């Protein structure tokens, strides 16, 4: 999105007008079912539905229906006005002013700019202990980093209620992608009175107050959570569903059984063994999900061990046959990756490294050559350790990769499988270990910031002053696309990671009477206010 650029060019306060006029989510003439109820699987039980305690997608997914922030996303991922009707920025893009619509909480209380002030301060307050507090620190909201560390009080945060319907945010420096962040489910308002009255128990169905299209009516951990329509939601006339039952089923086979028995209306991940035959058996239930911004890559230790040598890193990366990985092993629509940032990322100009254009045979030859140059041969084979969590897909992939390294390079790579919690806590994970990333916002810096020197998630321990310089200067550029492209070029020329695949278009099953659930959003951000049940 180029909003910030235009704002700079205009060098004056301008207003982004509401581009969407609230409308019914179904096409005219659609016959609706009398009973607007659906059952969906959320893939796991959530840690919390308190926006300040969420840290992962199953919770965010519910959050989008329960709470509405300043802005939301449309089906293609564009930012749409939410509780804010419109917004504007000052000359140097450091102060953003949001005009809020008059809306209400699910208990009928009016929602004001003060609610946003309270909620954003609460998110950063160390006493809240939010696992996603850092998200408000990414756009450098004034004092956010200091508050998180306990060096400043939450009341010093750069947010202000100018009046009941005007919310102002001050940033420490212009951040070109700030407006992309405000749709995130942790930056929503929460109801102060309820939280102060009930403490930790404020999210229980009998206590909770929400401001989104739905609110909670029932929650039994590991069985189900039932949401019902929020009668006070500002756009309630355009919400069709009356009731959503969310199941927390983690096992794809169990979820599939429930779908086949007619108890769930959507089966998102279908076990690969049964996928082909099922998609063929139920052609009118097959739907497409477009690629979301997520990818799997592998970290290599760039500071120690054999992988310190860039020739070894390149050889390891070249020797992976990504077509076999995606088509034969994963069968989930994944697309081979030779770089870090998914090319469909908004405003990103992807770079194609040379090795991506070679045939696998060429890559294998080059890999063998590089490894020989690095001094490894039959009498002195390359020996490495490769750490992965015990998830079956990770073990499957690692086994295939080790096989490729053995047959192409004669390398002896030992797989160390660790229970997930042990894997996550590992401080020294060996030569190679499984990595991966899901975009926090649709912009390349969410990917490239990982690999700055001493970055929190820079598990390759990659250090390159030029890279750091590019990423630092990109922060204040109007159009950082070129800086991003150069940074990614450095990263891949140094082969700090082994890119393997990114999520691609996939197919899944959905009952044909469910409408409005097109899975096209690049961040997989879905809102059930768009969903309806057609008459059968």
């Amino acid at each position: 999105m180029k909003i910030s650029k235009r704002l700079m060019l205009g060098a004056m306060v301008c207003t982004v007008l509401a581009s969407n006029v609230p409308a019914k989510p179904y096409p005219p003439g659609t016959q609706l079912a009398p009973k607007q109820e659906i059952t969906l699987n959320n893939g796991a039980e959530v840690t919390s539905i308190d926006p300040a305690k969420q840290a992962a997608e199953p919770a965010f997914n519910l959050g989008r229906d329960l709470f509405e922030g300043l802005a939301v996303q449309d089906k293609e991922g564009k930012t749409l006005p939410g509780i804010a009707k419109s917004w504007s920025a000052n000359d140097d893009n450091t102060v953003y002013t949001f005009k809020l619509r008059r809306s209400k909480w699910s208990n009928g209380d009016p929602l004001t700019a003060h609610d946003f002030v309270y909620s954003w301060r609460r998110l950063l307050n160390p006493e809240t202990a939010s696992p996603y507090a850092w998200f408000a620190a990414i756009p450098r909201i004034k004092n956010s980093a200091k508050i998180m560390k306990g060096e400043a009080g939450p009341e010093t945060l750069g947010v202000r209620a100018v009046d009941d319907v005007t919310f102002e945010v001050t940033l420490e420096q212009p951040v070109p992608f700030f407006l992309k962040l405000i749709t995130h489910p942790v930056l929503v308002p929460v109801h102060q009175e309820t939280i102060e009255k009930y403490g930790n128990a404020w999210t229980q169905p009998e206590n909770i107050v929400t401001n989104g299209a739905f609110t909670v009516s029932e929650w039994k951990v590991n069985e189900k959570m039932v949401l019902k329509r929020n009668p006070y939601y500002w756009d309630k006339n355009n919400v069709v569903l009356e009731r959503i039952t969310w199941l927390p089923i983690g096992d794809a086979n169990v979820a599939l059984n429930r779908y086949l028995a007619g108890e769930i209306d959507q089966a998102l991940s279908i076990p690969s063994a049964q996928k082909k035959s099922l998609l063929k058996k139920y052609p009118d239930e097959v739907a497409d999900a477009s690629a979301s911004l997520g990818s799997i890559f592998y970290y290599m230790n760039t500071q120690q061990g054999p992988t310190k040598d860039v020739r070894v890193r390149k050889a390891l990366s070249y020797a992976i046959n990504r077509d076999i990985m995606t088509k034969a092993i994963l069968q989930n629509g994944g697309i081979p990756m030779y770089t870090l940032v998914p090319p469909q990322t908004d405003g990103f100009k992807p770079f194609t490294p040379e090795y991506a254009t070679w045939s696998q045979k060429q890559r294998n030859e080059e890999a063998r050559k590089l490894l020989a140059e690095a001094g490894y041969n039959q009498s002195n084979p390359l020996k490495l350790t490769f750490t992965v969590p015990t998830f079956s897909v990770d073990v499957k992939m690692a086994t295939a990769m080790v096989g490729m390294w053995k047959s192409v390079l004669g390398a002896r790579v030992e797989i160390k499988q660790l229970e997930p919690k042990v894997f996550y806590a590992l401080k020294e994970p060996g030569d190679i270990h499984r990595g991966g990333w899901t975009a926090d916002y649709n912009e390349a810096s969410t990917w490239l910031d990982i690999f700055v020197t001493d970055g929190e998630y820079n598990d390759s321990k990659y250090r390159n002053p030029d890279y750091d310089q590019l990423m630092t200067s990109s922060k204040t550029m109007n159009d950082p696309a070129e800086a991003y492209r150069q940074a990614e070029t450095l990263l891949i020329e140094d082969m700090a990671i082994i890119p393997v695949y990114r999520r691609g278009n996939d197919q899944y099953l959905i009952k044909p009477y469910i409408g409005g659930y097109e899975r096209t959003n690049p961040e997989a951000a879905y809102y059930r206010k768009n969903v309806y049940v057609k008459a059968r």
Partner: protein
Amino acid sequence: MLLYVLRRLLIAVPTLLFIALVSFWLMHIAPGGPFDMERPMPEVVKANIEAKYHLNEPFLTQFFIYVRDFLQGDLGPSFVYQDFTVTQLVAQSWPVSATLGVLSFCISVPLGMLLGTVAALNRNSRLDYFLMSLSMTGVVIPAFVLAPVLVTIFSIQLGWLPAGGWEGGKPIFLILPVLSLAIGSIASIARVMRGAMIETLNQPYIRTARAKGLSTSYLLFHHALRPSLIPVVAMLGPAFVAVVTGSVIIDIFFGTGGMGQHFVSGALNRDYGLVMGITLIVASLTIFFNLVVDLLYTIIDPRIRI
């Protein structure tokens, strides 16, 4: 007798404390903590969270805080289901597991004993072989194989029964999980019962009774049944505790929301509070039912004194 019960209950207190200490220690020495995640949190955020849950305190201080809260009836917070306390989670999930467990027990005990007795009375006949092969099949087919088979037949193919869910324990939702739980235990109870019954039937006093011309049914109910019960009762005590505290396979497969799933996912997620809470419940029940079994012995066989 009363003194004996009191003494056993008193010993239970240090036993439980010891179990608590050991499991607390085991949880803490396992590498990886509740807040180590796929995407690690910034150190400062992690420190804030650990401070909130006292995880930054020394081990013994943490244990002391746990015991103090426990004595006040507070099982502490869940680290993974942060909107709930462990007490709430147990209150939600235990009735589910207990219902399933008691129902399956009510089916498997009488049925298992009946089959075992029938097989023993017809020892080495075709009926015996048939029943015992059937029971062997029941023993070797685990619930995680049986449950999907039942679901495929009754839910997907025939559409008679729901494939999962609890819905407050409506009977139709109970049938498949109870069956999956019961079939295995019917089989093992039948095997134990058959063995015990055969042994009793070989006793000299049974031969004497037979020689007196007593009918088989009289013989069975007045002479053979009680002594055969001892091994079965010995087995049923721990089996009952296991079955009423939930089965992770049933919970995951049928999405019932029972306690078995909490126990396993709690351990995998390092949800210390949840695991401790359930461990202490299981331990207390085990101690209690072992006592009940011991008392039952004296009723079944008056020669046993306590």
